[in-house]
């Protein structure tokens, strides 16, 4: 006859075991649910053309609705975004960044131009509700991919024949641009057929692939997510939260450069960015920062840019300069967790121009026991392939550096950078 203590112990063990099993099963159940095994799921699918950079990754080239059922594509309807007679061209009212409304005097945008928020996670909920409102269809999430993500996936799948043409990781961007030109001329069918067929064939190849190739594809998707070339936003879903593209605004020092190509065509694969950051830390924990962003435009045409830099919320601008002859700004605006400096410039063909901001930061150093600690987060913009970061941290007079990470000059990065320094 078991005692109450024994019985309690047994129930407790069973309860813990059940919780563990549930915890292990939840991600699997979540994946099955996202893939449409529980109910059909419909996602807004966006192709962001990152050769024409926008805050969330690139110009919205195509928008579509993707329905999945039991892990397979049930339905895919893509539309060329820049078709004013289609639903993708509807004007939507939304909260626009203050920098944009002030510098360009706009208060509404078309759906295809609505990715002007500072990060994807701010844009995606609005996109979802706008699409639901316009199409009348319930939507479960938003998926966005740019050309760099498509190239990475096609490097694994290999060449794909579509409509008699051989599409590879090397030519997909240009072939899509060629057909988007024809779409601008009024014939949208070739582009839509190309991209729809390509998407379906990639899904089929992934479905039929051997296990090693499947793992390669999963790795590529994870890497593209980490480098902000691929986003997956599902409201309230914890499994996809890392892919939702939220830009952190940590309570330390941070820099987030957000560029918007203002009608300069497909220039951004020919524009090279570098960030020079000189920060002088003071004994009271404040700092003076000198941030210079350089744009080397190797294109044979001018590059028109609207640039916003997000820095800590209590930053105060002291001065701003640019080498560009044609510019507008700077404008300093605020947000809940950041200060935004904005400037629009034109970088002439085959030239390099810089924009420099000099500003103060009241609190960027934290105490770590008897030591002082400085952290800087450089957040890579979605869609940008790579950039150069050149930091220079000047410690307070008499301070001695104890440890540092990612503080070396001329780093080339495809992702975010976390610089840390500990000194006494």
């Amino acid at each position, binding site marked *: 006859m078991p005692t109450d203590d024994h019985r309690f112990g047994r129930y407790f063990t069973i309860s813990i075991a059940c919780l563990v099993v549930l915890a292990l099963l939840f991600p699997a159940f979540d994946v099955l649910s996202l893939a449409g095994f529980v109910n059909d799921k419909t996602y807004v699918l966006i192709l962001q053309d990152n050769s024409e950079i926008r805050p969330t990754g690139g110009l919205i080239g195509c928008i579509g609705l993707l329905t999945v059922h039991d892990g397979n594509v049930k339905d895919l309807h893509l539309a060329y975004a820049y078709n004013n007679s289609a639903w993708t061209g509807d004007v939507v009212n939304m909260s626009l960044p203050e920098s944009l409304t002030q510098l360009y005097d706009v208060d509404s945008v078309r759906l295809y131009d609505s990715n002007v928020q500072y990060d994807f996670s701010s844009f995606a909920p609005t996109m979802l509700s706008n699409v639901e409102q316009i199409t009348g269809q319930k939507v479960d999430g938003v998926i966005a991919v740019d050309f760099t993500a498509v190239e990475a996936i096609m490097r694994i799948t290999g060449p794909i024949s579509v409509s008699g043409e051989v599409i590879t990781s090397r030519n997909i961007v240009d072939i899509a641009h060629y057909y988007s030109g024809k779409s601008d*001329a009024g014939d949208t069918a070739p582009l839509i057929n190309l991209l729809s067929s390509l998407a379906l064939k990639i899904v089929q190849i992934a479905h039929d692939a051997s296990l090693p190739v499947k793992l390669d594809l999963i790795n590529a998707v994870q890497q593209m997510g980490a480098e902000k070339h691929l986003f997956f936003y599902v409201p309230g879903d914890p499994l996809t939260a890392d892919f939702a593209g939220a830009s952190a605004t940590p309570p330390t020092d941070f820099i987030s450069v957000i560029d918007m190509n203002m009608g300069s065509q*497909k220039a951004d694969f020919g524009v090279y960015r570098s960030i020079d950051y000189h920060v002088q830390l003071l004994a009271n924990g404040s700092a003076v920062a000198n941030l210079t962003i350089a744009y080397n435009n190797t294109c*044979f045409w001018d590059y028109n840019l609207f640039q916003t830099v997000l820095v800590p919320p209590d930053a105060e601008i002291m001065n701003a300069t640019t080498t560009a002859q044609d510019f507008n700004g700077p404008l300093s605006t605020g947000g809940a967790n950041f200060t935004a400096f904005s400037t629009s410039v034109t970088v002439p063909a085959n030239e390099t121009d810089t924009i420099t901001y000099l500003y103060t930061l009241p609190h960027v150093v934290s105490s770590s026991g008897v030591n002082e600690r400085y952290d800087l987060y450089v957040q890579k913009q979605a869609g940008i392939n790579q950039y150069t970061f050149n930091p220079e941290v000047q410690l307070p007079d008499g301070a001695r550096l104890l440890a540092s990470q990612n503080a070396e000059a001329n780093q080339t990065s495809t992702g975010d950078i976390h610089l840390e320094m500990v000194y006494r």
Partner: protein
Amino acid sequence: MNRKRTITTVAIVAIAIALIAAGFGAFVVTVRPSEDPTYTEAASSIPAAPYTYATNGQVVLRVNNVSDASDPVTAAVWANLSLQAFQEYVDYRALAPSPGEKNLVANITVTNARSAAVPFTYTDFFIVGRDGSAYYANFAVCNLSCSAAALKHQTLPESFTSDLYVLFSVPATADAAKLVYASSPPIVIDLA
């Protein structure tokens, strides 16, 4: 009895190890798809050399030059023609190569060989590297009237003739051995 059990255990462990090794081996040696297609020579083709004319009965081709896009003369011609092609909805295409790649530009004179319009697409061109990999065309530009016909409408009208500049992204280490126009039969220009 113990000996029998030991033998059984050893056999099971050996089989398990063999299965795991076989699985790992299969995983390691799994053939992954190559990034670029491999060129397969057609049973019959129309061979040609640079600066000579070759025809498949539909079009006449003459390859005048294949140069690196970083060449200043090539870049200047590309920029000039891009301004004209833009009027026929052909986007500008920057010449900066992606990391690990280079851009080659082939200057090809294209002529309609028939007394009627013929279909044409620049995407039928590809370059074959010395290792046998095929690199399909990326982009093309040409003058205003050529852009309207060959690029926008993908058709060569009767008596059409024009220089076309076709861009190919290839690995930085690749050498172009052949330029192929994928018609039936294909026209194969030996660049060696």
